[in-house]
């Protein structure tokens, strides 16, 4: 049975199920809607996860950290205390000065991609991130 929502000229809304809407709700001043639910088509393309920064490939250091996520970031800092290689990667990011546009990280830079992939392997092994974490970070 259809579900209707009728909004009065004063803005008051009421919802009800009926085979047909009440006649008054079809008069001038009333807004009458039939509320419908539909199932997504089985072949609907999956648009995929939305890039966090609108597709931008150059980020600030803070944006890059946000992109990696808190769990990964905290774990990387912990790893840096025990691993010179990880510490070196963190230091390199810290020491990078921002370009005139305020960004420091280029997601298309091979060094960034290699670094994220490498640390992603470690984080995945520790169960901190899912298998597609590195891909997600590099996709923005």
């Amino acid at each position: 049975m259809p579900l209707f929502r009728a909004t009065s000229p004063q803005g008051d809304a009421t919802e009800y199920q009926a085979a047909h809407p009440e006649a008054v709700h079809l008069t001038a001043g009333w807004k009458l809607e039939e509320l419908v639910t539909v199932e997504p088509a089985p072949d609907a393309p999956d648009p995929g996860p939305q890039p966090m920064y609108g597709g931008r490939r150059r980020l600030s250091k803070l944006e890059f950290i946000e992109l990696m996520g808190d769990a990964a970031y905290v774990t990387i800092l912990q790893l840096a205390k025990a691993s010179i290689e990880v510490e070196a990667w963190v230091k390199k990011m810290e020491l990078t000065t921002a370009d005139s546009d305020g960004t420091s990280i280029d997601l298309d830079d091979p060094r960034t991609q290699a670094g994220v992939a490498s640390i992603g392997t470690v984080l995945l092994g520790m169960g901190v991130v899912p298998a597609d974490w590195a891909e997600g970070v590099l996709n923005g």
Partner: protein
Amino acid sequence: MADKYIIHGAAFYGDGTSSAEATSDGGVGAWNNIDIFSGATPTYGSLNAGDVVYIRSKTSGGADITVTLSAAITLGSASATLTNRITWIIDGGTVWSGINGVLTYLNPADAQRTVNLRIHNDYIAEKQDALAVVFSLTGGNQLTMFNAAAGGSYVKNIMIDWGVAVLSNGCRATFGASTFENLHVKAGRIAVAIFAMDNSGFQATFINPNVELFATPGAGAIFYTASYTSHLVVGGRISGIGATSGQTIVAGGDNGTVELIGVAYPNTMTLSSPRAGSIGRTTAYGADGKSSSAQITRGGLLDSRTDDNYPTLSAVLPDSASTPWSWKLYPEGATKPAPLPVSISKIYTDTAAAKTITVELLVANAFAGIDTQSVWLSGSYINTSGQTVVFDTRANAPGTALATSTAAWSATTYGAISLLKRKISITTPSAIKQDTQVTLRLSVAAKSASANDLLFTCPDVQLT
């Protein structure tokens, strides 16, 4: 290729081939379920590439149709192809006389329930806003309400509405290589951008968009570029309480470009910042409703609005009021290799003679670093032999102070900024040929230390 019809809520499920309601299931008559618009396979009849589907904008019972989203949804049919497109028309009375309703896709939850468009499908609402995508909560957490990143569509007269979402992190829409005509956006808080681009290398075209901003300015922008993307926006306007100081129109980077032709926006809005990523170029024409131009490059902003009290000198627009105008220069990102450029030209109509070319300037009195090395004139003219003669006034290091001027500017202040009269002159070494163009470029390599470090120049070059 055929016309098909949907009347949601009709008693019987027809075969889609008639605008009348079917008298039995499978009989000749309209389909009776709006889910065909979102990809469901018709139970009777078929939807084929090349079809035009008319959707009655009210149910058979006379109600507007509101699809309440419980998940993301994709409008259109996968049967469409590049050469045999499927067109969806929300009818506004052409097929069903007197029926003028609204088909709404409503997200009532703070969850990602994006309305996506399929490639090769076209979406037309006969009446403005008759197809609407709406978010109804006051707070949204970076939701992508609408996604046309697949590209390849022509969309007309639709509305995207999150105007009530003035709290939290807001919403956005994403676009690809499609054309949107008369898109109406009601935006609350903006998450990244209203018009974001998720794919690289595409141009999205917007004709006469109507953008209403219901939230006070925040971090998001109106247009956001991605890698080598392009927004072409022709006509339309940006308005509302959010269309004011603090609201950026263009942001992003990665060499994307935005061109606004005849898009009206208030003079208090920030067009863009050269520091906003690595934007390729942003241009805006006619933002003041006249013939103003604005351009953002890496060097800074150039703007010629006539509704912001710029001091003027002798240049006038070719309108009935001979409206005075001038260029405002804000070299926010200027450097020696990338100065802020202004192109000026004038046709020389007197008899051939050597002339002194003078460009008049106003310079903010506190703007440091202005000299003959950081501000200079380059150009060319045609001599009486028809040859192009080039010249420039840029001093080798060190520069000296610009020449003072006594030109009769309309004012020597801009808001609280005091301005000094200056000029740059050069005498041509030979005669300028009559009725030839003198082409000039004023370059400013002095970088603004604050928003008060401005210059103005009169585009009416003096040839004396």
